[in-house]
């Protein structure tokens, strides 16, 4: 079927319109801005303390960021669908302890990691089912599962504790080793990050996550399997929280019933600071990872500069509010720019 309008169709070359370039620039700028801020913080700290960016310093920085990057990547997927998963901290804690218990009883490290991931998948599925079938706000549902999972964890773990001494040496070594300054754990996180970003950009179901976060009703009408996609996002998020649990165990070798408690708030902050908009439909996992990197850097920078670490939380909060303010201002600017353009062409 070909259609020609009754009005003569002007031969219109596709203009690389000013609005598109403006919008593109703004969104790229958003991630670029965090990157620049991150570099500036690191450079300033290096000036103040020349030992900061030593090989060991860089390694510590990357190790600290790894786990947050992983969980933030999963969380970003959920936030893009206009939902949130507050139970990631609890999932991380219980997965870490499960993997630890299994290793304690002489299990194989690879199986332990798989076990942690599967446990995360299970809790992710639970969250996804509750949110997509229950039609209840994700904030409330996952607040509930946060406490449920933490409760199960506390009952099961009790006052027990797993320490590095209980774990196979290879596993603990793996947690801190790497190629010169780049730890293995960071490489794992990087691989997960890059493949998730590729998936979101180049696969239909990835784009559909953005679509349903951008306009859920339109997504339903476009025939997108909304429930399945939400389930997918939560399952993926849970899996990464589980994986992060296993890596946490390898990195710190120390797990008890409080592990990962309160972590969800850091994760959500990282995602939002990284430019994944809380109302869904926009942002990238790279942004979320940069946000995670920025927050952990602040964590490491302050002690290196001799500032008390009690400042960390306050600074995280300031970054969060700053990020939201910047988003808001940029959104207003873009809207008025687009409006003016429409008026001109009108």
């Amino acid at each position, binding site marked *: 079927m070909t259609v020609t309008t009754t009005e003569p169709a002007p031969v*219109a070359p596709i203009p690389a319109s000013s609005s598109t370039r403006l919008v593109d620039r703004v969104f790229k700028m958003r991630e670029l801005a965090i990157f620049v801020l991150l570099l500036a913080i690191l450079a300033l700290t290096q000036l103040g303390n020349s030992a900061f960016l030593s090989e060991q310093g860089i390694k510590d920085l990357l190790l600290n960021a790894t786990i947050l990057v992983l969980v933030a990547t999963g969380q970003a997927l959920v936030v893009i669908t206009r939902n949130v998963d507050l139970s990631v901290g609890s999932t991380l804690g219980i997965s870490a302890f499960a993997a630890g218990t299994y290793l304690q009883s002489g299990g194989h490290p690879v199986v332990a990691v798989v076990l942690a991931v599967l446990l995360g998948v299970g809790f992710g599925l639970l969250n996804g089912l509750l949110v997509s079938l229950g039609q209840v706000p994700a904030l409330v549902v996952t607040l509930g599962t946060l406490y449920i999972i933490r409760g199960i964890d506390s009952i099961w773990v009790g006052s027990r504790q797993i320490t590095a001494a209980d774990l196979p040496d290879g596993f603990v070594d793996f947690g801190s080793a790497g190629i010169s300054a780049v730890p293995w754990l960071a490489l794992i996180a990087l691989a997960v990050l890059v493949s998730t970003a590729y998936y979101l950009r180049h696969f239909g179901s990835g784009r559909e996550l953005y679509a349903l976060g951008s306009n859920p009703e339109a997504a*339903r009408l476009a025939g997108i399997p909304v429930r399945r996609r939400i389930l997918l996002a939560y399952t993926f998020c849970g899996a990464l929280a589980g994986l992060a649990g296993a890596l946490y165990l390898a990195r710190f070798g120390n797990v008890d019933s409080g592990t990962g408690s309160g972590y969800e708030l850091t994760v959500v902050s990282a995602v939002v600071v990284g430019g994944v908009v809380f109302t869904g439909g926009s942002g990238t996992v790279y942004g979320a990872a940069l946000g995670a990197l920025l927050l952990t850097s602040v964590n490491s920078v302050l002690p290196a500069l001799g500032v008390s670490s009690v400042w960390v939380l306050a600074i995280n909060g300031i970054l969060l509010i700053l990020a939201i303010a910047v988003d808001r201002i940029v959104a207003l600017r873009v809207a008025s720019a687009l409006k003016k353009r429409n008026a001109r062409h009108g």
Partner: protein
Amino acid sequence: MTHRSAKDPAPVLALRGISKSFGAVRALRDVSLDLFPGEVHALAGENGAGKSTLIKTLAGVHRPDSGQVLLDGEPVTFHGPADARDAGIAVIYQEPTLFPDLSIAENIFMGRQPRRALGRIDHRATRTATAALMHRLGVELDPDRPARGLSIADQQIVEIAKALSFDARVLIMDEPTAALTGSEVARLFGVVRALREQGAAVLFISHRLEEIFRICERVTTLRDGALIAGEPLAGMTEEDLVRRMVGRDLDELYPKQHVEAGEVALSVRRLTREGVFTDVSFDVRCGEIVGMAGLVGAGRTEVARTVFGVDRWDAGEVEVAGRALVNGAPSAAMAAGLALVPEDRRAQGLVMGMSIERNIGLTGLRATRRAGLMDRGAERSRSLDWAVRLQVKYARIADAVSTLSGGNQQKVVLAKWLATGPAVLIVDEPTRGIDVGTKAEVHRLLSALAADGVAVLMISSDLPEILGMADRVLVMHEGRLTAEIPRSDATEETVMAAATGRAAA
């Protein structure tokens, strides 16, 4: 126009005895409908007659309780919108359903993107295909531009491009012209006619009767969920159609009473808001209805918002009954006797989840307060009084506004503002998307208000409404007031000429 149905009697899509209930509400009762290829079919009926339910049944959103959907004569069951789409049925809803964060290209091909190896999306092919579609439609829209901020007309073009992209055989358009200007409607009709030439079946819903007669060949009329008639339009008059829709003869649609204009109630002088509108001056007198016409985006709504104080002005002044208004202060405007019934009743006029009583009560929170606390009894009696005066149809006054039909929602917004006893009433698109019966009631109400000495400024894109109701017509074009036409000289031609900037006003 040819009646293809005569020589090609096989309907591409048909409904047979469809019924659908939502709880106790019977939305559709035993409705049948035939859509023929190469024909534009009108679906007529008042708000709440079941048109939306019927469309959603065709679109696979609702499944009928009983009855059959026939595709090429074969019974089919749509399990969801994707099934209907795969059957070649495209629906363009009243409010376009786009993804604001995604590009135009992604909006068009969401769920059906061209693929490369391993199921990856071919972004370049998506973009090229979108550019080709835009070219076919004769529209200049950048495929990479996000849908956010597109005008309603452009959003509909994107929806039509979406329908074209999967070679839709059936195109369903739910009030596509409600928010369009004359030239945009002409562009849309050009596209619809071209689709019809290609053999597509089109189902067209509009509250503007003249549009139905302009583009449709056949009409199906619904009333209270039941099928009234399915017949060719040839030989029918607008009166015939209205009688089928409302089930009775309609009093005059534009019952304008002649009122001697009094003192100047609202005076706007050289009002400017940078980048939006420039140097706008006009008066509205007591007892006058002043129409404000213009294309969508000409700045009419923005002028109203600025006069009322929702937005700030950069230069100029506004006086109500000789007293200057403070810039950017809606509460001062209200105190001075100004009321604004906004364009978008769902987003700006009503709190959808709140009761009728509370919605009407919102403007009286000061008046019905006793010692700082709400006097619930006073609020209720004030709301009831106005709901009754405006003949709002509701079950209980404590019901949520969202349960009302569009026309009755609009009456609630009017009640909310009339309850403030305004001296100047600004109404922005007072009858958009409401049925003929309610429309006539709203017009009668505006006329009665003017007769009582209220100064009315009526913004409308419905040209017959402007011509039928206004004592004077102000016309805006690209942010400027381009003409002021007295009732005696106002015709479709003079107003459209000024609205499109062709007039030497």
